[in-house]
């Protein structure tokens, strides 16, 4: 069997379990809110319009944006509750995902219920009154039972939407079947992407068919069908929740975070492996947004991850001065401990910095070694960059420090950027210093004598729960200062290279072996 497929299969119990838990919670919550709202709206035309309008608008917000919006919302709420009551709400993971999906699930249930209630023949509700029912009895004994098949149809629509959209909850820190898709896209592993899509589609299909059985059971009043459907739903939900239940029963469960690129996956797997060997039970949570990872650590949603000094300096400390490499690390360590109870264990030994690179032979021919050398010939050279570099402060700093003005400026998707330099489409590119393709295409990194670019030392951060744990520190100390740039580039390249790709977890094992020797 294909090793990619086996790897994907091994992750399935965890991903599926979290996906089902999330989806079912959102659908149950959404239905529980929508049903009473729909009953009220059916009786009050003035409320009906605005209510359906608002839920329709929610539906037009792209799923990813809706999920992303709950993060700052909950973050603000958390700050408020911490000030007011002394405890914060989690802004990442399950809560924002389940809230966004709940909103998402409401429209079909609400609209179907309102429509079904309004379409009941007035002669029937008149008869309900006539035989002596109160309004409440009429609702529960006559109107809702008659509306039930249409309501269940609404729940079916909601279920398919929610199960699909739940794959987008990965970037806000909630594990789901979307982890396959996001990771697969990043490391260009299409087996993984396809696996995630098929798994989510199958789950949606199974739940939809079981609900269809409920609807037909209601329509023909078949107890057998209802029992069958109910049993099926219980089995699917119950079975997929078992891994979550087992996981929550174990001993200290460390969560290692990873941002959304290859190097991060490899390092998270490496850390998890080492902790597992030390007797911990570690899991990884990957594909976190850059800022999200930091807040997840401070909020104890994850316990550790690798970040980069320049990023923390600018994004978290909001500093724009350049105190020098070691001074930056020292100040970060003090600030992190004081403000967030986060321990900065140390720098791993390599930088993943924004750098500028040229094909080595071309650099030699033009006698270019550094950014300073570039200034003289920049007017006749072309530069390529990724989508953000030309709008980032790093670019402005370099341009200002060295007085650079290029003939042509182009933007590329990262995968094509390195090749563009190798093929000679552009002369200079912006690059990430630890990217394996620098070595592959024989590119030369230009030095930065004026230190215009900030340092981006990879640093291991450990959150409040394990900051002072001696066993954790003991098992991770060998990483500090031991991963050279060359080693990290090699590791990244194993995941990145077009042929003979290795999975991040395989590479993590390889990398660990390099450290021991």
């Amino acid at each position: 069997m294909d090793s990619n497929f086996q790897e994907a299969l091994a992750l399935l119990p965890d991903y599926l379990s979290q996906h089902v838990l999330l989806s079912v919670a959102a659908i149950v919550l959404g239905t529980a809110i929508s049903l009473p709202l729909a009953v009220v709206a059916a009786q009050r035309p003035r409320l009906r319009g605005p209510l359906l309008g608002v839920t329709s608008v929610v539906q037009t917000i792209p799923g990813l944006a809706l999920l992303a919006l709950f993060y700052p919302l909950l973050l603000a709420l958390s700050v408020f509750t911490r000030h007011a009551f002394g405890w914060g709400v989690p802004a990442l993971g399950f809560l924002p995902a389940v809230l966004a999906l709940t909103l998402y699930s409401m429209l079909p249930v609400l609209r179907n219920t309102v429509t079904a209630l309004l379409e009941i023949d007035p002669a029937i509700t008149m008869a309900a009154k006539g035989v002596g029912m109160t309004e409440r009895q009429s609702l529960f004994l006559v109107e809702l039972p008659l509306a039930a098949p249409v309501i269940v149809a609404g729940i079916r629509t909601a279920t398919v939407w929610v199960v699909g959209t739940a794959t987008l909850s990965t970037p806000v820190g909630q594990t789901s079947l979307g982890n396959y898709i996001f990771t697969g896209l990043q490391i260009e592993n299409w087996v993984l992407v396809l696996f995630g899509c098929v798994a989510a589609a199958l789950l949606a299909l199974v739940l939809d068919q079981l609900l269809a059985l409920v609807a037909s059971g209601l329509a023909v009043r078949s107890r057998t069908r209802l029992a069958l459907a109910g049993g099926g739903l219980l089995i699917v939900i119950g079975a997929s929740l078992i891994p979550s239940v087992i996981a929550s029963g174990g001993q200290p469960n460390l969560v290692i975070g990873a941002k959304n690129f290859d190097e991060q996956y490899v390092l998270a797997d490496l850390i998890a492996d080492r902790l597992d060997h030390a007797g911990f039970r570690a899991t990884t949570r990957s594909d976190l947004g850059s800022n999200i990872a930091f807040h997840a650590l401070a909020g104890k949603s994850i316990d550790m991850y690798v970040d980069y000094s320049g990023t923390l300096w600018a994004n978290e400390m909001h500093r724009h001065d350049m105190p020098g490499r070691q001074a930056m690390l020292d100040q970060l360590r003090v600030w992190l401990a004081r403000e967030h109870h986060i321990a900065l264990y140390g720098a791993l030994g390599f930088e993943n910095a924004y750098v500028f690179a040229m094909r080595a032979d071309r650099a030699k021919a033009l006698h270019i070694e550094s950014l300073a050398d570039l200034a003289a010939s920049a007017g006749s050279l072309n530069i390529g960059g990724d989508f953000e570099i030309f709008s980032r402060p790093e670019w402005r700093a370099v341009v200002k420090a060295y007085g650079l003005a290029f003939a042509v400026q182009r933007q590329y998707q990262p995968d094509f950027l390195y090749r563009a330099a190798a093929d000679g489409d552009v002369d200079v590119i912006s690059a990430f210093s630890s990217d394996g393709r620098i070595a592959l295409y024989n590119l030369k990194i230009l030095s930065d004598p004026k230190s215009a670019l900030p340092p981006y030392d990879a640093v291991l951060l450990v959150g409040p729960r394990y900051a002072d744990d001696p066993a954790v520190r003991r098992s991770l100390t060998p990483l500090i200062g031991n991963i050279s740039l060359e080693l990290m580039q090699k590791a990244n390249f194993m995941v990145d290279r077009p042929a003979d790709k290795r999975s991040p977890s395989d590479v993590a094992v390889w990398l660990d072996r390099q450290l021991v020797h």
Partner: protein
Amino acid sequence: MIEFIDVSKTYATTSVPTILDLSLTVADKEFFVLIGPSGCGKTTTLNMLNRLVEPSSGTIRIRGQDITAEDPALLRRHIGYVFQEAGLFPHMTVAENIGVTPRLLGWSAAEIAARVEDLLALVRLDSDSFHNRLPRALSGGQRQRVALARALAARPNIMLLDEPFGALDPITRDEVSDDYRRIHDELGLTTVMVTHDMTEALLLADRIAVMRAGTLAQVATPAALVTHPADEFVGRMIASPMRRAERLAAALANG
């Protein structure tokens, strides 16, 4: 005894009163029919009796007690009501439809089951084949029989019928209406029935109230109505069935 005392009703959507100063008495065990052209207010009058419609002014008493003194839902559980198109609950079986009011009154399951069997026999429906059917699997006449059984389920003394046989074919209509008249007599019910069919009214009623534009044109026994119509309007309403009966008799004599 049922009493209407100076009852008027004006609906919010119109300014013209639907019912104007209506006073009327229905005796115990009487079969009383309200008849008149469409829009004369006969169904409104019927519906005010169990508070499906509330009068704008005036008083309605049943056995001497003002009906507004009682909770409307409770009042309706003790008054049988048969709707124009049967009004059966489509998601309930025949047995569940019949047992619905006893269930609201909190009878035990065994009591309800026994009562349903009695009523199916009373309206002449075979329990084995009808008990578990849904309304959509019934003919018009069967539906109306189930509706009668449902109205009778909680042993009411008063029955309200709103054009109960209007949608049935002539043969079924005769069968069901004859059966109902028999049940009315056997159980000693007080019945108020709305119809626009004068022949049906003349054949079934103890007394008939002819209504015109929200007021009473005449209240009388069928015989008195035929022999002494109060005015030209009542005369015209009587004339049609009488003329048809005479022509039918003549045709049979000549045949």
